[in-house]
């Protein structure tokens, strides 16, 4: 078990180690211990401001998308859980069905659509398609359905409007589910490669994963610098995971056990 654990983590340890060496040559098995410990690779990666831009782009897109999902999935989940209207069942099942559609079927039409809308190579292309996550709709509907609605009814009798009820009464009760949703959406967007890669073309708009893939492709990057960039992309995810382990686990197993 421990051996397997070492096996699972050693590539990541390798990444960090390689990013911290000035001359890194893996030509021998002790290569990992050669060279001096240094932050030079990080300095070089950030020199010129490109890497800073990639990080900021990733942060911006992930933050906006996460915030939007919190509001929109809450709204939709609430409506689907509490209101009966024409097509409400169908709308709920649509969220589950969408999860089964492979991304590759929609990349070409989404690319064409985004071009039609004049959004190709803009922040809109990175944000707009992801404002409401189907898994989030599913999660919030399930969660709100299991909440007692006494408080909502009382507030309604007191004359509170629908949106007051939603944001003042339901939302605070939904904090655990919203935390699961937020962590999930943030990580998915932070790591996302395919869509940002297809929908943008200028370096100024690259997110971190796209920027890294391009760095490797265009100029034969020195390994140390490439690994420094990779560490910058991977470390926040691992830190978020260590802090929000329970939320992440719940988000992943919710679909499996209840779905």
């Amino acid at each position: 078990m421990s051996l397997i654990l070492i096996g699972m983590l050693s590539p990541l340890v390798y990444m960090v180690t390689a990013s911290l060496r000035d001359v890194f040559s893996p030509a021998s098995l002790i290569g990992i211990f050669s060279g001096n410990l240094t932050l030079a690779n990080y300095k070089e990666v950030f020199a010129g401001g490109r890497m800073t831009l990639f990080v900021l782009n990733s942060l911006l897109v992930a933050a906006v998308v996460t915030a939007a999902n919190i509001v929109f999935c809450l709204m939709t989940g609430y409506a689907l859980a509490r209101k009966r209207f024409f097509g409400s069942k169908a709308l709920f099942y649509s969220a589950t069905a969408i999860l089964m559609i492979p991304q590759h079927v929609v990349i070409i039409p989404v690319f064409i659509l985004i071009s039609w809308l004049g959004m190709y190579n803009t922040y809109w292309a990175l944000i707009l398609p992801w404002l409401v996550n189907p898994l989030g709709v599913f999660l919030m509907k399930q969660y709100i359905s299991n909440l007692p609605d006494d408080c909502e009814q009382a507030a309604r009798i007191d004359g509170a409007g629908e949106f007051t009820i939603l944001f003042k009464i339901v939302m605070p009760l939904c904090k655990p589910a919203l935390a699961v949703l937020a962590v999930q959406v943030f990580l998915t967007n932070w790591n996302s490669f395919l869509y940002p890669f297809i929908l943008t073309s200028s370096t100024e708009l690259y997110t971190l994963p796209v920027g890294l893939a391009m760095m490797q492709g265009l100029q034969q990057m020195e390994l140390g610098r490439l690994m420094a960039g990779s560490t910058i992309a991977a470390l926040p995810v691992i830190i978020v995971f260590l802090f929000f382990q329970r939320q992440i686990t719940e988000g992943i197993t919710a679909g499996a056990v209840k779905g």
Partner: protein
Amino acid sequence: MNRINTAILVSPWLLTLGIFWVFPVVYSLGLAFTDYRIFGEATFVGLANFGRLLGDPAFLQAFSNTAFFVFGTIPLTTVIALILALLINDKIPGHKIFQAGYFIPSITSMVVIALIFSSLYARGGYLHLLGRLIGFDVPPNGYLFSTKTALSAIMIMDIWVAVGYYVLLFLAGIKGIPEEVFEAARLDGAGFWRRLYSITLPQLEPITLFVLVINTIRSFQIFVEIYVMTRGGPLGSTSTVVYFVFDEGLHKFNIGYASAAAYLLFMVILIFAIVQLKLVTHRGGSL
């Protein structure tokens, strides 16, 4: 008033669903029957694209690579994940650490993983050296530059990445088994293997099928690691269907042709998913 409120509440999802999911899925199906190339008009060509695909060596190679990838990785990933989940659950000290450690690769960006393994697999990289040390017949320029080893190398990496994720799902399934069942079995004198065989595994059937469905849908779509590590090379030996769709559609702008390929794969995935789901309902399990 109430209706208007409800309409406002569901509108974001309704719009997203319509614009970014339903429309693309339908539009893509329409494109598959045309010769659309971005520039100029689209003409209806019937099933010509599909016929051409079945005679296109590049597509057939991509398809067989994808099938090899799917059927090569899924059994291994599933079995390894199941074994690890059973071991972790047996209340060993520090099981939380194992669970977390196994899971970390699967939440790390695939681009990052692909970059790390590119350098590990490269000539002089650790796994290259290790292979030589063990006495493998390693390709001189690294695993990714040989038609014999490139695809398998990527498959091994993908198993490594995915296992932790499925361990998590299996653990959730094991937790769902009522403790009393085990107690009763223990009182009846059932040993570890007997309990495993008669209780744990049958109880895990629904989650196992869920794992298979999810993994099938995912694995058929392999793209990112191919793009970063090999761009389908050497000599198309790691080209996959989604890589083919990307290359034809968004590089060469043969939109109609690429859409047909995308839909063909979609149908294959759908058939697999439906068969697997049918198996669940037939056995009386529920998802």
